[in-house]
C-alpha cells in the first residue's frame, strides 16, 4: 500500500510539520491532489498524493513534526486493509513526532521490508521490542490476516555504537535526532541527547531496564510526568515551542557567527536617486509598476556585483565558489521570522521586472507560499530596515554568501549649498563581509562603486 511520506521541500529541510490535513480519511485521492499542508523551515508547502486511491489512514495529527521520508498517511484501495486503528500513530504523533511513535518498535520496522513477520505484531501491539519478531506465531495464517505493520514510524537508523550507548544510557535511539548520513543516529547524538536528558527523572531508567529485558518500554513509561525539577525561572516564563522557521533561522545564524566578519559603512547621497525614482514611477504609473528604493538597491547591487564578481562568491570550506549568476536575495520579515526570497539574474533584469518580481516574492513570503526555487540560490543579500526608521545597522551574513548589505532609512542631513544651509537625503549602507572570502580593499571597492551607482542613478539602468 502506498505511503505518503514527508516530502523534502527545501534544501535545508530535515523535518516538517504537518500543518493541516486538507483531505480526510476515506476521501478518494488522485496522484497530484493536494491532501495537506506542510510547514517547512522556509514556507508552507503543499503535500501532494503520489498515488491514486483512497486516503485510508492519516498517520500523524496536525501539528506533528515528521522527519523527511517518514510516512504521514496511507493511500489504499478503499477496502480498509490499511493499518489497524489500534495502532493509532496519529494520536501519538500529535503529542510528538512521527519518529517518536516508533518508540520501542524498532524491530517491527526492521522486518517491515520483508513484511511477513511484522504482521504478527498487529495482534500484539504492546509487545513491540526486539523480541517481537521471534515471539510472532510461526503459522502462515497470522501473516495472511493483514499486512499492516510498523506503520507508526520508519526504521531508526543508528550506528551500532550509538545503539549500544543509547541502551547504556537508557535512551531510545528513536527519540534521538540523528545527524549522521541519512539521519543516522551516531555517538555524538547520543552524547548530546544524554546531556539533554541528564536532568530528567527516571523515565530513562525505565527504558534502560526494559531494554535489558529485551522488551520495549511499556506504554506506561511514556506517561511518566514531565520533569518536576525545572528551574524556577522557567516556571515563570511562557514556553514557546520553536517553529521550524525559528529553528532554521537560529541554526543558520549560529553558523554565521563562526564567520570572521568585518563591516564597512558608506553614506550615500540620495537626492539624485529619489528624484530618479520619482521620475520613473511617474512615467510608468499607467503600467502599475512602482519601483521602491529597495528595488533600486537590488538593481544597483546587481550592477555592482557584475562589476565585482569576487563579491558574488560563497565560502565552501576548502574552496570559494565565484558564481556566474547574480542572484540577489531580499530579506523579508514574516510573522514567525525571516525569509530571503531571491531575484535571480538580477543583473540581467530591468528595473520594472525586478520591481514586479520583488513585490510578488515578498507577498508569497508573507503568505508562506514561496517555492524552494524562489528562496534558494542567492549569492548576495540586501536587508532593508529603513521602513522601521532604523538609521544604521549591521546585518549578519546569510551563509555561505560572502556579503550582505544592511540598508537604513534615508535621513535628512544639513548641508551648505550655494551658501545656504539646507538639507539633503542620505542613506547609510553597511556591508558585512566574510573575511575568509574577501579582504577590506576588495570589499571597499565594491561598496564605493555601489555608492557611486546610487548617486549617479543613470548607471542603474545601464
Amino acid at each position, binding site marked *: 500500500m502506498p505511503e505518503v511520506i514527508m516530502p523534502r521541500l527545501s534544501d535545508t529541510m530535515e523535518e516538517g510539520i504537518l500543518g493541516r490535513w486538507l483531505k480526510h480519511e476515506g476521501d478518494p485521492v488522485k496522484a497530484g491532489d493536494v491532501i495537506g499542508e506542510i510547514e517547512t523551515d522556509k514556507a508552507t508547502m503543499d503535500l501532494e498524493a503520489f498515488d491514486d486511491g483512497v486516503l485510508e489512514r492519516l498517520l500523524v495529527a496536525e501539528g506533528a513534526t515528521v522527519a523527511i521520508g517518514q510516512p504521514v498517511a496511507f493511500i489504499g484501495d478503499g477496502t480498509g486493509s490499511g493499518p489497524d486503528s489500534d495502532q493509532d500513530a496519529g494520536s501519538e504523533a500529535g503529542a510528538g513526532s512521527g519518529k517518536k511513535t516508533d518508540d520501542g518498535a524498532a524491530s517491527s520496522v526492521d522486518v517491515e521490508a520483508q513484511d511477513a513477520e511484522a504482521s504478527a505484531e498487529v495482534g500484539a501491539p504492546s509487545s513491540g521490542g526486539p523480541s517481537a519478531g521471534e515471539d510472532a506465531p510461526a503459522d502462515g495464517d497470522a501473516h495472511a490476516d493483514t499486512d499492516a505493520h510498523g506503520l507508526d514510524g520508519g526504521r531508526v537508523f543508528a550506528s551500532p*555504537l550509538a545503539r*549500544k550507548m543509547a541502551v547504556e544510557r537508557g535512551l531510545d535511539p528513536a527519540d534521538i535526532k540523528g545527524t*549522521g548520513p541519512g539521519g*543516522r543516529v*551516531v*555517538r555524538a547524538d547520543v552524547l548530546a541527547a544524554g546531556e539533554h536528558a541528564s536532568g530528567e527523572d527516571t523515565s530513562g531508567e525505565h527504558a534502560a531496564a526494559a531494554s535489558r529485558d529485551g522488551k520495549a518500554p511499556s506504554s506506561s513509561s511514556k506517561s511518566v510526568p514531565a520533569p518536576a525539577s525545572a528551574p524556577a525561572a522557567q516556571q515563570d516564563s511562557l514556553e514557546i515551542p520553536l517553529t521550524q522557521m525559528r529553528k532554521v533561522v537560529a541554526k543558520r545564524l549560529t553558523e554565521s557567527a563562526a564567520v570572521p566578519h568585518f563591516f564597512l559603512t558608506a553614506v550615500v547621497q540620495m537626492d539624485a536617486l529619489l528624484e530618479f525614482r520619482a521620475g520613473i514611477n511617474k512615467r510608468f504609473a499607467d503600467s502599475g509598476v512602482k519601483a521602491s528604493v529597495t528595488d533600486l538597491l537590488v538593481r544597483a547591487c546587481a550592477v555592482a556585483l557584475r562589476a565585482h564578481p569576487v563579491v558574488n562568491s560563497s565560502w565552501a570550506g576548502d574552496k570559494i565558489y565565484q558564481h556566474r549568476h547574480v542572484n540577489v536575495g531580499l530579506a523579508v520579515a514574516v510573522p514567525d521570522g525571516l525569509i530571503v526570497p531571491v531575484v535571480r539574474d538580477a543583473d540581467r533584469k530591468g528595473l520594472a521586472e525586478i520591481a514586479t518580481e520583488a513585490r510578488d516574492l515578498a507577498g508569497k513570503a508573507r503568505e508562506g507560499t514561496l517555492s524552494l526555487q524562489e528562496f534558494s540560490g542567492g549569492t548576495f543579500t540586501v536587508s532593508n530596515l529603513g521602513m522601521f526608521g532604523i538609521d544604521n545597522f549591521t546585518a549578519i551574513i546569510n551563509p555561505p554568501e560572502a556579503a550582505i548589505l544592511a540598508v537604513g532609512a534615508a535621513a535628512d542631513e544639513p548641508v551648505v549649498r550655494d551658501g545656504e544651509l539646507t538639507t539633503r537625503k542620505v542613506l547609510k549602507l553597511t556591508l558585512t563581509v566574510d573575511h575568509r572570502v574577501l579582504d577590506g580593499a576588495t570589499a571597499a571597492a565594491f561598496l564605493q562603486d555601489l555608492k557611486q551607482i546610487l548617486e549617479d542613478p543613470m548607471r542603474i539602468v545601464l
Partner: protein
Amino acid sequence: MSADADKTTLVTYRQALNDAIRSEMNRDEKVILLGEEIGIFEGSYKITAGLLKEFGPERVRDTPIAEEGFVGAAIGAAMLGMRPVVEIMTLNFSLIAIDQIVNHAAKIYGMFGGQQSVPMVIRMPGGGGQQLAATHSQNLEVWYAHVPGLKVVAPSTPADAKALLLAAIRDDDPVIFLENLALYNTKGEVPAGDEPAEIGRAAVVKDGTDLTVISYSRATTIAVEVARQMAEEGISVEVVDLRSLRPLDRSTICASVRKTGRAVVLEDDWLSYGIGAEISATLMEGAFDYLDAPVRRVAAAEVPLPYAKPLERRALPDAGDLRRVILELLDDTSFES
C-alpha cells in the same frame, strides 16, 4: 645484548635489512642467500651489499633467472636443514614461483603431518610509484596472506624491518617478507643487537582517541604522517601498523576501534578482496557494537598501474586521500574536536 638493545642508530630501511641478514649469517652458518644478482651485483636494490665479499659465493648464491627453480630449490634446501633467505627481485616476479610458494612451501609441513618444516624466507619488494608500469608495480600481498601455512610480514619501519627479518630467518615456517620500494631509503632509529620481533603481532604506532587508521608497510608511513598533521588540528588519530598480514592480529585492531569507534583502512593494494576487506569483516565481528559508522577503505584504484606519472600518482592512495576520507568519516559521525 640487553645493553645493546637500549642503543639505537638512525639507519635506512635498506641498511636495517642488510644488518639483519649479516647478523643472522654470522649467527647461523645454515643461513644462505639465494637470488638474482644478489652477489656480484649486490642486489637490484643493494640489500645484500657487501655480503658476497663477507660470506663468499656459496652462502651468497647468485641464481639464474628462474624464480620457480630457485624458490623451489630453497624449499628443498630448507627441508634438509638449511635456512635459505631468498630474494625475489620484485614481488611481481614471485608469480612465476607461486606454485612453489603456495603448493609446496605452504603445504609441506601440514600435508606431510608435521614431519618436515620449511624454514625459509622469501624477501621481495612490492609497490608502485616508481613509474615501473603495470607489471612491475604490484602489491599482491593478499595473494600470499590468503594462504594458510605461510607467514606474511610487511614491516613499515627500519626497526621492524630488522627485527621482523631476524624473526623470519629464525622461524621454522616459510615467511613471506614484504618490502616496499618506496621504503628502502626511509630512515628510522633501529636498536642495536639482534632482538627479533614477534611475528603475528600488530602495533599501535600512534595513539589516538578519535579514529583508527589500520595499515601496513609503506601505507603506515602515510598514515602516521597524516595522523601527525591532524593532531595539530585537534583530531586524534590512532594508527595500527599490522606488521604481520598472516597471522593477522585481529584483537589489536578490534581493541583500537572499540576505543575510537571509527576505522579507516589504508592499503597500497587494490581495493576489491583486499586487506581492507578482511579488516572490515574482522571489525564487523570484533567491534560491531563500537562502530559509529561503516569502516572506510582507502586503496589503490583498480587498474593495471599506468606508466604515465599523473595517472600513476592518482591511482595510488596518498595522504590527501586518507585525509579526505578521515574527514568524511568524522563528518558522518558528527565529530566535534
